[in-house]
């Protein structure tokens, strides 16, 4: 629900028309046609440049983003978004560090990379560009019901996304309560460098593509129902339940697992003639159902705004997570503001998360060593400064994000006992935004 100053004006205008007609009747003149005095807003724009930078030579992302918004008629808006990302750096492959130098075949199958003894295994061949765009149109279906339909597309070197969504929101209770329902459908194609690996197939030597196949796809369906409630003149709350179903190829095609000796923890020899130790491509289930409950409260303290939200998520992969997110907008002179931000996130590991697999034991049906499916806590601390301009706003924020996780305790055998099996992730987020075109 968008709360706008204009709402009360509509009542005044409705009173004005019969009043004008009555006046004209008294004066013996024809009543003029209703004149819509409400001037539609011109286009307004949000633009930003973002740098996301992980420490230790990991992922770097430079991102340009924009939103253009136009009021087509009262309560009817067109929204267009655009994003361009450029990613470089190295990404953890999932393989465990070891006390020996390890060599890996790059995803293309044409090159190899190595990880020094005791060092984390980072795939340095990772780089990508992503371009994304979306459009949505919102219009009033009835006086109290807003409809919103949209479509989105994005393209990366190895991934294409197509999506559509629709949302309907109905006001009740003198517009103090809004119930909304939405559905989003996505159909994504993954076309990894070198082909999508067969789940849990072994990494092979240079030029041997027997573990790879062509492209693959997944479909995602999201449902969302929510209620928004105006509590009092300064407080609004929101409560959402969402359900997300994914089906298809849900692996990260570039993630692998190490197979190690169950006693010594050392890597074991891989396929004959490959010159590699034994690594398996990850294999996740081909479906996932996520449910989440999200609650938000927003309160104005005489010009300072507190926004706090909680999210609880659970899925059928065994991941449960909690997220607490708090922003406090502290108003300064002349419309300027400072906004501290704290976010805390905690998740349990997926049932099939394994830091390593052990040689001589049956390969599980599903397995992944992707750190994002492990057990970890994350914290974000940030500060934003904003300054109004004649028709918009400048703002800049700087945030620090840290993930601290725990490896699977079963992996602590032999040489792995003293190695860092779950390195911390530290990242800086810097974003500069400029909004303009506002009345």
């Amino acid at each position: 629900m968008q709360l706008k100053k204009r709402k009360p004006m509509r009542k005044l205008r409705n009173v004005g028309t019969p009043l004008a007609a009555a006046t004209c009747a008294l004066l013996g003149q024809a009543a003029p046609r209703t004149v819509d005095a409400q001037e539609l807003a011109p286009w307004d724009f949000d633009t930003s440049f973002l740098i996301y930078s992980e420490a230790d030579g990991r992922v770097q992302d430079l991102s340009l983003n924009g939103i253009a918004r136009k009021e087509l008629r009262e309560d009817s808006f067109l929204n267009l978004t655009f994003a361009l990302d450029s990613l470089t750096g190295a990404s953890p492959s999932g393989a465990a560090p070891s006390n020996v130098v390890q060599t890996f075949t790059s995803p293309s199958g044409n090159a190899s990379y190595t990880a020094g003894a005791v060092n984390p295994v980072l795939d340095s061949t990772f780089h990508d560009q992503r371009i994304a765009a979306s459009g949505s149109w919102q219009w009033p279906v009835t006086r109290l019901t807003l409809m919103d339909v949209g479509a989105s597309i994005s393209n990366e070197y190895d991934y294409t996304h197509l999506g559509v969504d629709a949302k309907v929101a109905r006001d009740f209770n003198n517009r103090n309560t809004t119930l909304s329902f939405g559905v989003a459908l996505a159909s994504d194609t993954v076309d990894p460098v070198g082909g999508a690996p067969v789940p849990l197939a072994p990494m092979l030597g240079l030029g041997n593509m027997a573990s790879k196949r062509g492209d693959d796809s997944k479909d995602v369906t999201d449902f969302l129902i929510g209620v928004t409630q105006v509590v009092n003149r300064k407080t609004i709350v929101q409560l959402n339940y969402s359900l997300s179903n994914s089906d298809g190829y849900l692996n990260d095609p570039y993630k692998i697992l190490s197979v190690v000796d169950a006693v010594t923890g050392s890597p074991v020899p891989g396929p004959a003639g490959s010159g590699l130790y034994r690594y398996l491509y990850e294999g996740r289930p081909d479906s996932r159902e996520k449910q989440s409950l999200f609650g938000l409260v927003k309160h104005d303290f005489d010009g300072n705004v507190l926004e706090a939200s909680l999210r609880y998520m659970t899925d059928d992969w065994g991941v449960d997570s909690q997220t607490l997110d708090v922003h406090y907008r502290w108003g300064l002179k002349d419309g300027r503001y400072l906004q501290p931000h704290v976010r805390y996130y905690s998740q349990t590991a997926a049932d099939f998360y394994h830091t390593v697999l052990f040689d001589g034991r049956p390969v599980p049906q599903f397995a992944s060593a992707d750190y994002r499916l492990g057990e970890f806590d994350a914290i974000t601390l940030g500060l934003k400064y904003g300054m109004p301009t004649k028709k918009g706003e400048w703002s800049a924020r700087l945030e620090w994000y840290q993930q601290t996780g725990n490896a699977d305790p079963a992996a602590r055998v032999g040489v792995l006992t003293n190695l860092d099996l779950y390195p911390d992730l530290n990242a800086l987020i810097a974003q500069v935004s400029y909004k303009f075109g506002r009345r």
Partner: protein
Amino acid sequence: MTGIRRRLAVCAALAAAGAALGGCAGVEPWQRDVLARPDMQLVADPLEAAADEHIYFSKEASSGGQGFGGGGCGCN
């Protein structure tokens, strides 16, 4: 079956919450001066929200909540 029951329970809880919250109505249209401010909108800065959603979707196993969590990116 358990999943369906759980979803029904959540829907019932949402409906109950909506009904309960409905009881605290009383803000008239002409009293919306504070709630109509841009900084009091549910998503006050859409680009910041989108950037955060994209980052956390790429680095964590959860997504969505306030909006759809589908992602549309190969980063997870």
